[in-house]
């Protein structure tokens, strides 16, 4: 669509193009793809995925060999009956080929997830902080004085980018996994719900961390500050939260609910959300994790938009 505008003498008529709602998204997408970060991070994601695949395939090969081996039975001596029953169930699962194939498929088809999500978080935070780092925020907000629209445009472009990363990673995982299962003469189990669910939740994880990254970037405009915070939230946040909640459980509140509450931290919530099985015995359900992620995303994005609207750009 192109509409010529009426311009006074001496001025050229610059035509209007594009659909109003999509212009900002297109602008943000062009910003992402006109610098190097997206493919540098992409290569990083591929390398990480490759390493994770290598580890996951090796583990799967071992597990499958165990499962195919002589089943026999496990005799537990000198243990409580409950303990013995659990050990026997575990032993049985280890030797059940179907269970092991599904577990292996879930791992292989989501390989590279842990660091992939972290890279998406960093990249989407950069999408925002780059504007301040390189002082393009001025030009951006001159073109679009309604700053919340700019943030929303970044949100759509950022989640789109995260989806691209997800699809490419999934493609690599699928190729490697299919070759692997073919070589093992086993079904890749792509028709099984637990495997499909693992893949779907993986996509959800990419989306959630992209939104969180945009929110974090608007919250902390300083590039180094937001990168460091991202890393802390993601890496230290995971191990740190577990330790903190374990300590609370141990010394302050002696209830299992404390460990369940660890889902409040985004890094735990993310893992809870994307794990097909319970992350740990007291873990909250996957949808609690999803809700917590959504809550953090809305909080970070909302506060970010509010600050962006109020702050002086200088």
């Amino acid at each position, binding site marked *: 669509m*192109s509409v010529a*505008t009426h*311009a*006074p*003498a*001496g*001025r*050229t*008529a*610059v*035509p*209007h*193009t*594009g659909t*109003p709602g999509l*212009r*900002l998204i*297109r*602008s943000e997408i*062009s*910003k992402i793809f*006109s*610098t*190097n970060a997206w493919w540098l991070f992409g290569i990083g994601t591929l390398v990480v995925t490759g390493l994770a695949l290598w580890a996951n395939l090796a583990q799967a090969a071992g597990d499958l060999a165990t499962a195919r081996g002589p089943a026999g039975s496990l005799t537990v001596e000198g243990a409580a009956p409950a303990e013995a029953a659990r050990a026997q169930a575990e032993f049985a699962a280890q030797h059940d080929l179907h269970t092991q194939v599904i577990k292996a498929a879930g791992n292989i088809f989501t390989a590279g997830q842990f660091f992939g999500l972290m890279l998406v978080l960093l990249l989407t935070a950069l999408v925002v902080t*780059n504007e301040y780092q*390189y*002082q*393009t925020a*001025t*030009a*951006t*907000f*001159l*073109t*679009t*004085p*309604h700053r919340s629209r700019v943030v929303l*445009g970044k949100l759509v472009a950022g989640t789109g980018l995260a989806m691209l990363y997800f699809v490419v990673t999934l493609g690599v995982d699928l190729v490697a996994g299919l070759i692997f299962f073919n070589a093992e003469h086993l079904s890749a189990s792509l028709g099984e719900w637990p495997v499909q669910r693992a893949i779907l939740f993986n996509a959800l994880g990419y989306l959630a961390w992209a939104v969180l990254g945009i929110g974090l970037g608007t919250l902390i405009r300083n590039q180094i500050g937001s990168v460091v915070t991202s890393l802390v939230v993601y890496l230290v946040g995971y191990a740190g939260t577990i330790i903190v909640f374990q300590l609370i459980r141990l010394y302050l509140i002696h209830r299992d609910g404390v460990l369940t509450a660890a889902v409040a931290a985004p890094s735990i919530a993310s893992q809870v959300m994307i794990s097909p099985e319970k992350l740990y015995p007291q873990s909250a359900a996957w949808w609690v994790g999803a809700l917590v992620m959504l809550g953090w995303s809305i909080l970070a994005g909302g506060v970010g938009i509010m600050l962006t609207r*109020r702050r*002086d*750009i*200088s």
Partner: protein
Amino acid sequence: MSDGQIAVLGLTKVYRKVRAVDDLSFTVEAGRVTGFLGPNGAGKTTTLRMLLNLVRPTAGTATIGGRRYADLTDPIRTVGAILEASGAHRGRTGRNHLRMLCYAAGMPASRADEVLELVGLTPAAKRKFKGYSLGMRQRLGIAAAMLGDPQVLLLDEPANGLDPEGIRWMRDLLKRLADEGRTVLVSSHLLAEMEILADDLVIIAAGQLVRQGTVTDIIDSMGAPQVRLRTPEPDKLIAALDKATVVRRNDDGSLIVAGMDPAGVGDLALRAGVALHELVADRPDLENVFLELTAGKATIR
């Protein structure tokens, strides 16, 4: 109202303890180049940023064509601005920098190439911003400002980093744009350049208005007209002058006669039979006027 008049009324910005802009009021008319002058830290950039909705005023209003920038339906087709020379991503090409602005403003990507041509950057269109010289960065800034072919132009130190040829190019461009009926507000430290370029001046210091008017009026207001001349018989000429006339001898042998115009001095010399080798109206230059007007107000606040 679409005449593109800029109106600043009681504009104030307070940063913690500093009143960067203090109850500032002035207007800028279309069809003229208006120089926006002031010592460092006078509040020029803050004022321009408040006009553009980038900085929130503590009090007062700043409007363009009667509307606040945030209320303009098509901001960059109405107002073009250059605020800093380094406003692009180092790793992005000049052309892509302009294109992303085109997309956001709903302009065809080809518009980026048109403005690159306008500022003479076409050969460097596909070069990354980090490889641009300061002068090229300024040109890219002007290209961005011209994307929407706006009625109003706000330029903060656009001549920074330009070579003499670039400065002349900029001067011709801004004069032409004003002749086309646009509003051109340009801040600068280059007073000699401003004296040539600007029609009107707004001079501020310490966040407050010091003087507004045409360049001629402001300069004339700061000193009576005087005439500089050379003659082989200075004493004979001085004797012929009115006793009340102030005459000063310069070290280079020329004379300064205050309170007379060149015609008056020339006629008088003819009647006295004194030869004149040089006779010029001597106006104080903008630099002297500016320094006098802002004396003592340029302190670091």
